[in-house]
């Protein structure tokens, strides 16, 4: 039995790693077919990810919202819910952080936490709605979340245009006192936009792990996710747990918005299309096997790929879309872990004999 558990642990690490390698190999094949030099392509890609202190800083910066979106997806997933509404929750979180960051004059020690909390609260409220409707009226959370995404998209941009408009399709900048930007981190990484949000991200990952695995509430949330009837039988309030789970997930998504609003951009645009980060979160959660550490690693990887894609394009002319293809293939490989298990299993057997 011990061996089996151990094996399962090994698999949990092995599958994403093997998938990532397979995805990159497939990417190389596509580059070859497209008439590009894969060696050169990947070299510039890895340069763009880790080549310079600045590249590393940018990779980490790009990973923060991805990781939080991934945490949001994973948290809901672990409690039996599919939060496809991370995108919308991120947008309202972003707006809330920018509004608090712009509208108040406070010392940084208060201003930053307040803006961050506002983002979390906004995301939580946004996710509360599908959660509540599911709990109360048994409405499918997926469809409500999809609708809430659109509502968020149009509402945030309209609110900015009405109350926070600085022209040029963006809001006013936040005040210095609410900014997560850090000259220290920037200097460290040769003027990248790396900001303190990474600390919030790591804290969020720990919080997710702690809630789910260490608290009685987490035990309850997961139980409700697995079997509502049994949870009700055991005296748990199923509806309240569903709502809570969505709200917590939404809070993480809102934080992802704060990373953009208080960190990378310091303002919010009047978007007319989705940022895509919410959907990327699904990929991140999956590659990270819905575990806290896994998500951090996966988001680092995806964040790096995404920031480095223009670099690859710049140096070798390979269209940046290649990266999207590679990411898609990696997701397929992870999701089809059955195949990898089977192959690894055979290889293992062969080796043993």
């Amino acid at each position, binding site marked *: 039995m011990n061996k089996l558990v151990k094996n399962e642990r090994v698999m949990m690490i092995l599958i994403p790693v093997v998938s990532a390698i397979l995805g990159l190999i497939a990417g190389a094949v*596509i580059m070859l077919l*497209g008439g590009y030099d894969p060696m050169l392509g990947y070299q510039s890609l890895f340069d763009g990810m880790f080549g310079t202190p600045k590249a590393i800083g940018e990779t980490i910066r790009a990973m923060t919202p991805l990781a939080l979106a991934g945490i949001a997806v994973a948290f809901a997933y672990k409690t039996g819910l*599919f939060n*496809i509404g991370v995108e919308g929750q991120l947008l309202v979180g972003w707006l809330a952080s920018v509004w608090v960051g712009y509208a108040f004059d406070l010392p940084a020690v208060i201003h930053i936490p307040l803006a961050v909390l506002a983002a979390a609260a906004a995301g939580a409220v946004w996710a509360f*709605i599908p959660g509540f*409707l599911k709990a109360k*009226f*048994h*409405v*499918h959370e*997926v*469809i*409500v979340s*999809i*609708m*809430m995404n*659109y*509502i968020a998209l*149009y*509402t945030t941009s*309209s609110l900015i245009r009405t109350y926070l408009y600085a022209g040029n399709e963006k809001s006013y900048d936040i005040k210095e006192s609410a900014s997560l930007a850090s000259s220290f981190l920037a200097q460290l990484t040769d003027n990248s936009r790396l900001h303190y949000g990474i600390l919030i991200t790591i804290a969020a990952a720990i919080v997710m792990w702690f809630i789910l695995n260490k608290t009685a509430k987490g035990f309850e949330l997961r139980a409700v996710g697995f079997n509502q009837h049994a949870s009700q039988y055991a005296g748990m309030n199923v509806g309240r747990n569903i709502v809570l789970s969505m709200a917590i997930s939404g809070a993480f998504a809102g934080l992802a918005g704060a990373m953009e609003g208080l960190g990378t951009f310091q303002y919010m645009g009047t978007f007319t*299309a*989705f940022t895509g980060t919410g*959907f990327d979160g*699904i*990929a991140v959660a*999956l590659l990270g096997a819905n575990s806290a550490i896994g998500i951090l690693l996966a988001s680092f990887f995806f964040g790096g790929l995404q920031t480095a894609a223009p670099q690859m394009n710049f140096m070798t002319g390979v*269209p940046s*879309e*290649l*990266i*999207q*293809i*590679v*990411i*898609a*293939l990696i*997701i*397929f490989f*992870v*999701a*089809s*872990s*059955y*195949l990898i298990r089977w192959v690894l299993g055979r290889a293992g057997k062969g080796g043993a004999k």
Partner: protein
Amino acid sequence: MNFLEVLAIIIPAALYSAAPLIFTALGGIFSERSGVVNIGLEGLMMFGAFTGIVSTLLLQDSLGAWAPWVAIVIAAVVCAVFSLIHAVASITLKADQTVSGVALNFLAAGLSIFLIKKIFGKGQTDFIQFRIDKVSIPGLSDIPVIGKILFSNVPITSYIAIALAFAVWYIIYKTPFGLRLRSVGEHPMAADTMGIKVVRMRYVGVMISGMLAGIGGAVYATSIATNFAAGTIAGQGFLAIAAMIFGKWHPIGALGAAMFFGLAQSLSITGAQIPVIQDIPSVLLTIAPYVLTILALTGFVGRAEAPKALGVPYEKGRR
């Protein structure tokens, strides 16, 4: 503007924008009725739009006005094949179906633009010369009142979509194929014991969904967008999924839901030109379709019953 004039604007507009949603939602029904979640409809639509435009561009010199129609057929075939990726992953390899669908979306988005850049050397295509045009149906469009509302200024594809919804209803509820498809989505083990090939049925379901989503995307591209770029399909596939769920996985329900979306959308656009509604802040009109959907689901449509085995990979002998 009087009321009839308003109707004569919004109904054709609704029919126009609903057609791609109807095709795609009907496709979704085939997949999900067989028990396979298909979040990948968005990507399939995108690939359909891509194929539709590229084919039209390549064919229009030789085929002229027939080019977009042939392109739609090509898109149907290509997307049926493209959907095999989802089928293999989620049926044979027992991947999480939602995740596999999401991956398909990423793949379609990346691959289509990658190929466009490879083929045309730029990030978006030219406009097609021949489109699926809006027409007024001879005879019918001359009927007083309803002729202008229902039979003028609408592409033929919209009527095909509506007819198809009824055809799909017949197939799903009246034919052996439909019964088997539904049984596989409700209780695959029971179907298996009755000698029905569960895996094969699910492949067929997913491939039909690919085909129809491909048609949906191609119809969108050849009648509405008329070229292909990264943002051409931006959320229509998700709306189609919503229409399918809203319509309770029923072809006529999905048709109604898609028309509802079309209507709400066209109202939100036309509203700016209609007295009274004009005074409502435009953002409220823009979000109205989505809010109304939520209210409808919550209020009078009630709980939607998904196929019971939806999302569960079938393993022989598992209980």
